[in-house]
């Protein structure tokens, strides 16, 4: 593990029941960088995030966060170390209003954004505080899902397809926010299928195929590797 890596994954295997989904996944997320996992549907990107977060029951290998081995920890303990997860389906709770959704994740470390700072990033949320969480538009739900984990003080954010199904203008807004979070020192691991979006925010891209990590492309080299990327993603 290199000195700068906040997250280091090695030989990660994961199973859903009998189905072997991840096969020895290896990669690193350097501190302060935005790293994406690219790949087609079903190659194991979301499972990789969930395995890091302790949400896959059977997992083996090594996941080190800031030097601490977390492979065997339950997900609440992993979150308490400073890892926050924003799921693909956003995970906004229907039985909670927007404000309750926002305050749901407890502060795990000092240094998180205040509620006011979250409103500054996502002004729409402030006007909808009393609304039922799932009554928000898709874009607003995504903002809520990201906003609530920024309060926790977590240093590593795992974002699973934050742009999926959103209008281009909202995608652009989320891109700005990810860049701003990076500038403020957050480390972000991003699962994306939209590599054009990924190329605007990320420092490096890992490519997955069939539960394996098959390539790493620094963002600076993305343009020169477009053909290869298209092939990986089946574009």
């Amino acid at each position, binding site marked *: 593990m290199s000195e700068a890596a906040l997250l280091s994954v090695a030989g990660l295997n994961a199973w859903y029941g009998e189905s072997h989904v991840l096969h020895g996944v290896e990669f690193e997320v350097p501190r302060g960088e935005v790293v994406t996992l690219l790949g087609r549907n079903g190659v194991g990107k979301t499972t990789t995030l969930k395995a890091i977060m302790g*949400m896959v029951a059977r997992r083996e290998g090594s996941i080190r966060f800031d030097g601490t081995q977390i492979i065997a920890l339950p997900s609440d303990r992993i979150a308490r170390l400073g890892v926050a997860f924003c799921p693909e389906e956003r995970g906004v*709770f229907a039985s909670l209003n927007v404000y309750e959704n926002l305050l*749901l994740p407890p502060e795990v470390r000092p240094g998180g954004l205040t509620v006011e700072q979250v409103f500054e990033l996502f002004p729409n949320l402030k006007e909808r505080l009393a609304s039922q969480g799932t009554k928000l538009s898709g874009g607003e739900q995504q903002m809520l899902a990201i906003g609530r984990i920024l309060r926790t003080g977590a240093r590593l954010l795992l974002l699973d397809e934050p742009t999926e199904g959103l209008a281009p203008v909202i995608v652009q807004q989320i891109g700005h926010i990810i860049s701003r979070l990076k500038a403020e020192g957050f480390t972000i691991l991003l699962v994306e299928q939209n590599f054009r979006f990924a190329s605007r925010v990320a420092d490096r891209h890992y490519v997955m195929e069939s539960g394996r990590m098959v390539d790493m492309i620094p963002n600076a080299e993305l343009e020169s590797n477009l053909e290869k990327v298209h092939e990986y993603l089946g574009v």
Partner: protein
Amino acid sequence: MEIFGIPTQALFGQLLIGLINGSFYALLSLGLAVIFGLLNIINFTHGAQYMMGAFCAYFLFTRLGIGYWWALAIAPLAVGLVGMVIERLMLARLYKLDHLYGLLLTFGLALIIQGLFPNEYGTSEIPYAMPQELSGGRNLGFMFLPNYRAWVILASIVMCLATWFVIEKTRLGSYLRAATENPALVQAFGINVPRMITLTYGFGVALAAFAGVMAAPIYQVNPLMGADLIIVVFAVVVIGGMGSIMGSIVTGFALGLIEGLTKVFYPEASNTVIFIIMAIVLMIKPAGLFGTQR
């Protein structure tokens, strides 16, 4: 004085009995709703745990000389603790299975508990004195209101509303509601969901035991006191909507009153009216009056 040809004393007397029964229906169905909401388990042991609350009060008095007021605090804690052990050792293994397995396990536990107590204590009622402070009653003009019964209604309403408040209006309650929807994600936010589940089961059981202590001076203590009641309470839960907190409270009290009124106007149907309502509700709104389809 008469209303609809019924003497007011008789009418209000039955309404009071209805309200007392409703207090127990509400407390017990509330416990069931809290447990079902988070654990997805239909706790058939609830009636036995209600009975254990009453027995605990009886033991505290006969063996340790501890009276009603302390029993009201100690019995729910003790029975709730037993509930937490049951949850950790047994129920926790069933969460990934269909609801039916939890129901079968808790039904079996209820049969075991209700089978063990009669060996020692028979099946006849064992008297348990009401606290001195609440003996007697007051004449309201249109009816006589025994103090203890007034206390039971008041305590039940306060307990139900306090539980509703905690679940609907506090941070802890938002954890519970969120974990009911998506426990894995709530845990991934840093909340120890397994511990929360254990404590929630303990709390639901403690509510049953609390009801048991309050019932002891009215219905006396009896190993089978929960067995019949729990069938009615399940009907209340079905009518209110499985897992609905406000549904269980409102439906509990309302059905107690309806049962009381039926005793006045058509006594032959008083034992079945709740089940008739249940059948109608199931046909029209299967998720219950306050419930949502899960």
